[in-house]
C-alpha cells in the first residue's frame, strides 16, 4: 500500500466559514460579548457626549441666545475653552484605554482556544481574521449605541441649559468650514465616534490575537487567565 508522505501547504479557508464561525462565537457567548461590547459603548458614549455637548454649547453661544456664564478672555476668540480641550483629550484617553482593555481581556481568556485551533490546523491568519470579524462587529454595534447614548445625553443637558431654543439652532450639520472649521456638527461627530470605536476595537482585538497566533500552540494553550 503506497501512502503519500509528502507534507503539503495548508489551504486557505473560505471567507464564508470565517464569517459563520465568528458570528456563532458572538451568539453563543452572548453574555460575554455584551459585556465586552458594553465596554466599547461606555467609552464612545463618554467621548461623543463630550464632543456633542461642546458642539451644542458653541452653537448656542454663536446664536447669541445664551449669555456666557464663564467669560474667560481666551474663550471669547476661539469659542472653545482650555477646559473643554482638556475634557476632550481626557475622554479620548479614557475611551482608548477602556476599549483596548476590554478587547485585550476578551482575547486573553481565549488563548487556549487559539492554541487549540492551531493544533487542528488553523493558519495564523485564519485566527486573526476570526478576531477581526468578531471585534469589528462588536466595535461597530457598541460604538453606534454609545454614540447615540452620548448624543441623547448631550441633548437632554442642552435642553436643561438652553430650553427649547436648542432645536432652532441645533448643530446637526457641519458649520461653514471657512468660518468654523472645528465645528463638525452632530452627525459627523456620531460618525467619527463609530469609526473610532470600531478601529480601536479591531486593533485592540487583532493585536493580541495576532500575538497569540504567532506563539507555538503549546505556549498559547498554557496561558491561564
Amino acid at each position: 500500500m503506497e501512502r503519500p508522505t509528502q507534507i503539503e501547504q495548508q489551504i486557505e479557508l473560505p471567507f464564508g466559514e470565517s464569517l459563520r464561525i465568528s458570528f456563532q462565537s458572538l451568539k453563543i457567548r452572548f453574555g460575554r460579548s455584551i459585556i465586552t461590547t458594553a465596554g466599547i459603548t461606555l467609552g464612545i458614549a463618554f467621548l461623543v457626549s463630550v464632543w456633542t455637548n461642546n458642539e451644542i454649547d458653541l452653537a448656542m453661544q454663536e446664536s447669541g441666545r445664551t449669555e456666557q456664564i464663564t467669560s474667560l478672555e481666551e474663550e471669547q476668540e476661539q469659542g472653545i475653552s482650555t477646559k473643554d480641550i482638556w475634557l476632550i483629550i481626557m475622554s479620548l484617553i479614557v475611551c482608548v484605554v477602556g476599549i483596548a482593555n476590554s478587547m485585550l481581556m476578551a482575547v486573553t481568556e481565549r488563548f487556549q482556544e487559539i492554541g487549540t485551533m492551531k493544533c487542528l490546523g488553523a493558519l495564523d491568519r485564519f485566527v486573526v481574521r476570526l478576531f477581526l470579524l468578531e471585534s469589528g462587529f462588536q466595535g461597530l454595534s457598541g460604538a453606534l449605541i454609545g454614540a447615540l447614548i452620548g448624543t441623547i445625553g448631550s441633548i437632554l443637558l442642552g435642553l436643561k441649559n438652553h430650553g427649547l431654543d436648542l432645536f432652532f439652532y441645533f448643530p446637526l450639520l457641519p458649520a461653514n468650514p471657512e468660518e468654523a472649521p472645528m465645528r463638525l456638527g452632530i452627525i459627523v461627530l456620531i460618525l467619527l465616534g463609530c469609526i473610532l470605536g470600531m478601529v480601536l476595537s479591531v486593533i485592540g482585538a487583532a493585536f493580541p490575537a495576532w500575538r497569540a497566533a504567532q506563539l507555538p500552540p503549546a505556549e498559547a494553550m498554557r496561558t491561564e487567565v
Partner: protein
Amino acid sequence: MAETVVKTENVVKEYRMGTNVVRALDGINIEIARGEYISLMGPSGSGKSTLFNMIGALDGPTGGSVYIDGQDMSQLSRSQIAWFRCHRVGYIFQSYNLLPVMSALENVTLPMIFAGLSNRDRNKKGEELLNLVGLGDRTHHRPDELSGGQRQRVAIARAFANDPTIILADEPTANLDTITGREIIDLIRDLNRGKGVTVISATHDLKMLDVSDRIVDIRDGLVERIRNRDEIDIEVGEVGGH
C-alpha cells in the same frame, strides 16, 4: 522491524525564565514504529508533556531533531506545519480542549473545515466518528452539556477527523474517574488496532500499562528505560496484588 513513524534524535528543550534555564528534555532518543501503542510514563515534571509537544510540532526543540515519516520537522514552513497538524496528528488533551461555542459535531468537523472538506462530507464523517465513540445521540450538544467522559470522547472523535497517522494523548484520563478512564483507554486502544494508527500517550495511569505495546519511562528529561509488553504484564500483576 516495522516502519518507523516517529524518531527523535537528541532532542533537547530548554525553557528560559528570566536568568533561570530549565532543561525539560536532556537529549531524548526514541524510535516508534507504525501502529504501536506507546505510553510515556514518569513523575510529574519529568518532561512528558514537553516531549508530547515536540513530537506533535506544538513547540520547537532547542536542540536535536524530530523526524516524522522520515521528514525533519524543523525544515517545514509554517504553512506545512499547519497542514501536518491538520492531517497527520490527532491531539487528545487532559482538559479536552474542545471549543466551548461549538457543538460536538462542529468540534469534530472543524479540522475537516481546515482540510477543505465540503459541508456534506464533513457532517457525514463527523456523525460516523461520533457514532464510533458512542455519542451518536449527542451530536448537537455543546461541551458544557456533556460529562467529562463524553467530552473526552468528542475530543477522540475530533482527533480522528482527518485520518491521522499519529494520535498524541497527554494524560487523557487524568480528569476522569477509574471506570470512565478505563473506557477511554479501551476506546483509544480499539481505534489504534482498528485503524492502525500509532498512539503515543503520556500518562500516570497504571491502567494504561496493559494496553501498551511499549512503555517509555522518562525521568529528568531523559529516557530512563523502555519496557516491552511481556515485561509489563508481570508488573501489572504486582500492581494488582497490592
